[in-house]
């Protein structure tokens, strides 16, 4: 009889419990990639994460590390307070596009501008997910949301905000990469990017590191999970091209 061999298993820092995320959502994948990174780098005992306001507010139920929950958009400020007083700790914030690109725009820009040695995982799904799918600054032109019933109109609602491109011009931001989690090849690249960002912080690199992750939100997009991954590939990457922007 052949012995059963384990070829893949849950990484210990990713808790063994069901998540509250919808079928087809990208958050679970991003969480797993962070947990794998923490375990592979062996930094669970010195990592502190920050959960945003949004769907990922409960991230601390899935990631088995010390975590802080903060006010909407303020994670980069809280992370600043944490990292400055605990330079030996690895501090990361996990933020959605409502959190980071709308209400928290000032905090992310200034954390990058000061060159805070923190890592930001920026989940961009082009909507406010938890509140039911309103327009976010990152919403595509023409995209229908609950607050753009006729589609996003640039004349009155502006263009999608490209935060990674904005941050990449700041000297204090040393590594910015945009990735996606809609197919295995991209998931692997995202993992590599997250690990690289954490490694830079671990090495004491002088500045902010950020990985933007395009993530599918079938519920708020009113799509099936399959349609959602196709939409990331065909639509989102046109406005938000994948790749390394800095560092």
């Amino acid at each position: 009889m052949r012995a059963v061999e384990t070829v893949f298993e849950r990484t210990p820092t990713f808790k063994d419990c069901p998540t509250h995320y919808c079928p087809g959502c990208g958050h679970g994948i991003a969480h797993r990639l962070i947990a794998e990174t923490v375990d592979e780098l062996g930094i669970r005992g010195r990592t502190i994460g920050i959960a945003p306001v949004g769907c990922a507010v409960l991230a601390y139920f899935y990631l088995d590390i010390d975590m802080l929950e903060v006010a909407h958009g303020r994670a980069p400020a809280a992370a600043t307070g944490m990292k400055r007083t605990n330079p030996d700790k690895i501090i990361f914030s996990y933020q959605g596009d409502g959190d980071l690109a709308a209400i928290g725009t000032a905090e992310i820009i200034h954390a990058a501008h000061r060159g805070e040695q923190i890592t930001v995982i920026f989940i961009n799904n082009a909507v406010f997910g938890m509140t039911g799918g309103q327009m976010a600054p990152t919403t595509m032109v023409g995209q229908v949301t609950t607050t753009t019933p006729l589609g996003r109109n640039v004349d009155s609602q502006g263009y999608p905000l490209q935060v990674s491109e904005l941050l990449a011009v700041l000297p204090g931001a040393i590594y910015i990469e945009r990735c996606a989690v809609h197919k295995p090849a991209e998931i692997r690249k995202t993992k590599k990017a997250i690990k690289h960002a954490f490694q830079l912080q671990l090495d004491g690199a002088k500045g902010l590191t950020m990985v933007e992750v395009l993530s599918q939100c079938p519920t708020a997009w009113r799509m099936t999970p399959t349609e959602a991954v196709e939409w990331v590939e065909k639509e989102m990457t046109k406005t938000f091209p994948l790749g390394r922007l800095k560092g």
Partner: protein
Amino acid sequence: MCGNEALAEAAIIAGVDAYFGYPITPQNEITAYMSRRMPEEGRIFVQSESELAAINMVFGASATGKRAMTTSSSPGISLMQEGLSYLAGAELPAVVVNVMRGGPGLGNIAPSQGDYFQATRGGGHGDYRTITLGPSSVQELVDCMSFAFDLADEYRMPVIILADGILGQMMEPIVLNGAESAKWPRRKLPPKDWALTGANGREQHIVRSLWLKEGALEQLNDKLQERYKQVEKNEVICEQYEVDGAEIVVVAYGVAARIVRGAVSKAREEGIKAGWIRPVTLWPFPTEQISKAAEDFKIFLTVEMSCGQMVEDVKLAVSGKAPVLFYGRSGGGVPTVEQVLEKIRQLTIPAKR
């Protein structure tokens, strides 16, 4: 040293690990002082991009168990209310100094006591309180700092020091007492076994204020209220002078209390039986002390540099047992000894002369 610089040095003596602040008059001396002194001490100073960021930097540092503070003046403190509510909800200690200026709106940069409601009622959203101290001299401002950090750590809640533009700007001789406060002894504090320090060989710690499960938030609120009752029971501080047998008692805090002290002394020289009560803790409020003073009939006069805020707490304490009157100046106006004395005379004439 002006009051602002004195309180900054006192915070360093009190063991503040990190200071975060944004410029606003009339408290800019604190930020400037800290920008020089904190690095000298090997501690953290960050000039934030806004008061929103400053209070959230405090939030982050405090969550890791560090002593953190920020300072501002009225409009900036309004912006910090979100963070204060989150600090209260997450049970995090912090010290916030408000060097009050005139409002509402941008108001002006002159001294005021117009933020009493905001400080003593919670200020942000939700059912919470913040311990509020109302020092009346630069020395007391200095003594307040280590006391405030200890209170914050003991009760795991934000403590607000309510100063004003006069206290912040004026110079008085002070004694910096090392780690020992002249007025209030240092306390033995509970360990910060809840802090986020990295889950090294232990279970994870979570610091949060979101409680979705049915009944969970009510449980948190009950716990907070129980703690607030302990604060009300143990931490009330007030001073009084010639209250027994007085026909009029003037209630005032902070700088206004010093003006009142002068007016009461002059009134007594004129044969008016006047006394004063000075709440040092504004929350918890000295309700019992004032209620006791109201047992034999006397007139209460509350004097504030506002349109009448603390007077509501005095009325609640007196609870209809005696008349409570108010005299105040606002928008940078400061009552003079003569104005308060005249008010005392007016109120006591029908009875005495």
